[in-house]
């Protein structure tokens, strides 16, 4: 595909050529008609002069001497000639410059139709313009006994009608028209060349903002997406493109930053257990030990491996949820039973912290959802509560179900989160406690998983902190029946 600059330039030049062609043609034909009209006017005038100066005397036709001597009939460079025929074709008179040659004679000439103009070639093949007309000669009245200083004439009879042809050389006119056409073509060609040059500069200038934007885009690397496209001033046509590109860069920057942060966080979270595993193995191998010591080291290593496995599985689950690469199995779930099932593995840990747990969900409440993923939400919410509730604190779970809608609230005491921290609590790897000592199994991924699963199940989750430092996770789910 040609460049926009070439296309614009070719378009402009093509349009200009068409306009110039139309203009030049119009001018040429305008001049052509005008000059021919003037030429024909002169020719007609000369024919009129000749027609009234044709005399007939005893079957001889003659033209008045003054007319014969007119300069127009005697200029060999731009000759104007005439010839007179009898209607039967007999040549009667001709202009002196013709010599013995004849002018072309029209075959049929109607006396009633008036003068006829034709463009022909003479016997030397030069272009000539002729006017043909039927003239009636005048006859001198020469009665004897009447004396008069001025001769008296009367018109001859119809039988004496003559054919008069006046011809004028067209070379001069054609030379003028040729000069005009050359001039017009020259001007048009010059205009086209000039317009190509000017058009090139104008189009280039016009497209300069696009080039500038293209240059700026080319300089943006994947590690520097914070750069925005700027230009001063940006043409109105380019401004929407610039805005959309900057919007796109914003989204890309956010996505890349999230990606980088996620990768860095994941790597960072894996470093510590990896360091632990390596240290356990290296220390164990540093010297010969008994079987019990080896077994102890292997158990420690296994424990760390299990932690890492949980984290990796959570990361995989999160990735699958992000890509919606999961199949849902919708069925009716008793909410109270599911809460109890999810609480059971956590009860020992809760007992250690002397936590009070109240399942306030009505045993008759059910909702239609995926039991596996809903259990993951409940487990993570309860695990989060057990991890972060103060010693001797309280955890309670409540629920309500309406038509097409279910709400489950997990509340725990002893929350010290600020409102700013509350916004971050669903971010992957974010933890209220920066250390990992109190993180349990979810490694800062628990609430991120809860949020993603809730979205996949067609619901949402929100967090809040009451003035009494109670942390609540409210889960809204779509449900088809009670």
């Amino acid at each position, binding site marked *: 595909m040609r460049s926009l600059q070439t296309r614009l330039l070719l378009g402009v030049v093509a349009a200009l050529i068409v306009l110039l062609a139309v203009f030049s043609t119009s001018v040429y034909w305008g001049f052509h008609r005008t000059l021919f009209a003037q030429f024909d006017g002169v020719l007609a005038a000369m024919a009129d002069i000749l027609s009234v100066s044709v005399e007939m005397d005893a079957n001889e036709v003659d033209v008045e001497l003054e007319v014969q001597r007119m300069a127009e009939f005697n200029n060999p460079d731009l000759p104007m000639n005439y010839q007179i025929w009898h209607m039967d074709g007999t040549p009667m008179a001709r202009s002196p410059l013709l010599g013995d040659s004849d002018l072309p004679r029209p075959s049929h000439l109607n006396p009633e139709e008036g003068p006829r103009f034709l463009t022909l070639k003479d016997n030397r093949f030069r272009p000539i313009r002729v006017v043909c007309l039927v003239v009636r000669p005048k006859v001198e009245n020469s009665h004897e006994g009447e004396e008069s200083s001025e001769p008296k004439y009367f018109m001859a009879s119809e039988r004496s009608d003559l054919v008069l042809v006046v011809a004028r050389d067209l070379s001069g006119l054609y030379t003028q028209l040729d000069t005009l056409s050359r001039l017009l073509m020259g001007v048009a060609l010059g205009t086209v060349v000039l317009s190509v040059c000017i058009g090139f500069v104008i189009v280039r200038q016009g497209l300069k903002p696009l080039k500038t934007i293209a240059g700026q885009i080319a300089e943006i690397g994947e590690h520097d997406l914070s750069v925005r496209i700027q230009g001063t001033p940006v043409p109105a046509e380019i401004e929407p493109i610039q805005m959309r590109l900057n919007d796109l860069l914003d989204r890309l920057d956010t996505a890349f930053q999230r990606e980088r942060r996620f990768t860095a966080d994941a790597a960072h979270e894996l470093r510590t257990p*990896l360091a632990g595993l390596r240290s356990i193995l290296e220390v164990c191998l540093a010297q010969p030990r008994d079987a019990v010591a080896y077994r102890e080291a292997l158990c420690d290593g296994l424990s760390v491996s299990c932690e890492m496995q949980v984290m990796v599985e959570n990361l995989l689950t999160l990735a699958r949820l992000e890509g919606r690469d999961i199949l849902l199995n919708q069925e009716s779930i008793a909410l109270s039973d599911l809460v109890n099932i999810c609480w059971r593995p956590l009860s020992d840990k809760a007992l250690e912290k002397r936590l009070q747990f109240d399942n306030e969900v009505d045993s008759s409440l059910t909702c239609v959802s995926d039991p596996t993923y809903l259990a993951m939400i409940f487990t993570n919410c309860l695990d989060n509560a057990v991890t972060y509730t103060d010693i001797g604190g309280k955890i309670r779970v409540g629920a309500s179900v309406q038509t097409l809608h279910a709400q489950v609230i997990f509340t725990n005491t002893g929350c010290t989160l600020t409102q700013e921290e509350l916004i971050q609590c669903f971010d992957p790897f974010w933890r209220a406690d920066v250390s990992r000592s*109190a993180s349990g199994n979810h490694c800062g991924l628990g609430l991120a998983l809860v949020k993603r699963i809730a979205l996949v199940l067609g619901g949402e989750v929100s967090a809040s902190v009451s003035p009494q430092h109670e942390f609540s996770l409210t889960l809204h789910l779509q449900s088809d029946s009670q």
Partner: protein
Amino acid sequence: MRLLIVEDYAPLRRSLTKGLTEAGFAVDHTGDGEEGLWFARSNDYDVIILDIMLPGLDGLKVLDTIRAEGKSTHVLLLTAKDMVADRVKGLNIGADDYLIKPFAFEELLARVRALVRREYQQKRPCIEVGDLCIHMDSQRVLLGQTSIDLTPREYALLEYLAMRVGQLVSRTDIWDHVYEFNACATSNVVDVYIGYLRKKIDRAGMTPLIKTIRGRGYVLGELL
């Protein structure tokens, strides 16, 4: 030499404690930042191995606090944060070294030993006192061409005396730098171990290498 490990990840903390103890160090350990600060304030450690992300009080604040209080204990930061900015920040606050997780235990050991040598202005990993040669990197002790077998505690005691060769070392100093916080020992255990050492490194008819300065302590080699 006495070390403090402040690391909240229990498996790593346990293995480091075990490995460093086996390497002859007296090791105190904790997983909490505030408790770590208390340990650092209460004892004169040769090296503190400090994690950055800690519950209670983060490692950089612990380091900042002990430096503000004038403690010059060598600190090795141990962290998963690997960005240059993190390292620069830690070193600018007053850390003496920085090790990124995961790491080789041998490297940690070598860095800790280097920091210990720096503490006592010892450039070489081998200290010679008369015929006695103590190789700190391999924990081997040679008397002339004869290798001497020492228990970890005996070696720790000899290494500490060797680090301060020619200096008067009090029983309290020995207690503070060779025994960990929770050591179950009586007050005369130092004298007992000095006796064990003398039996192994002194030769009959030769000037004893470890001299007792009555009422003040001990000196390895000639008092400077």
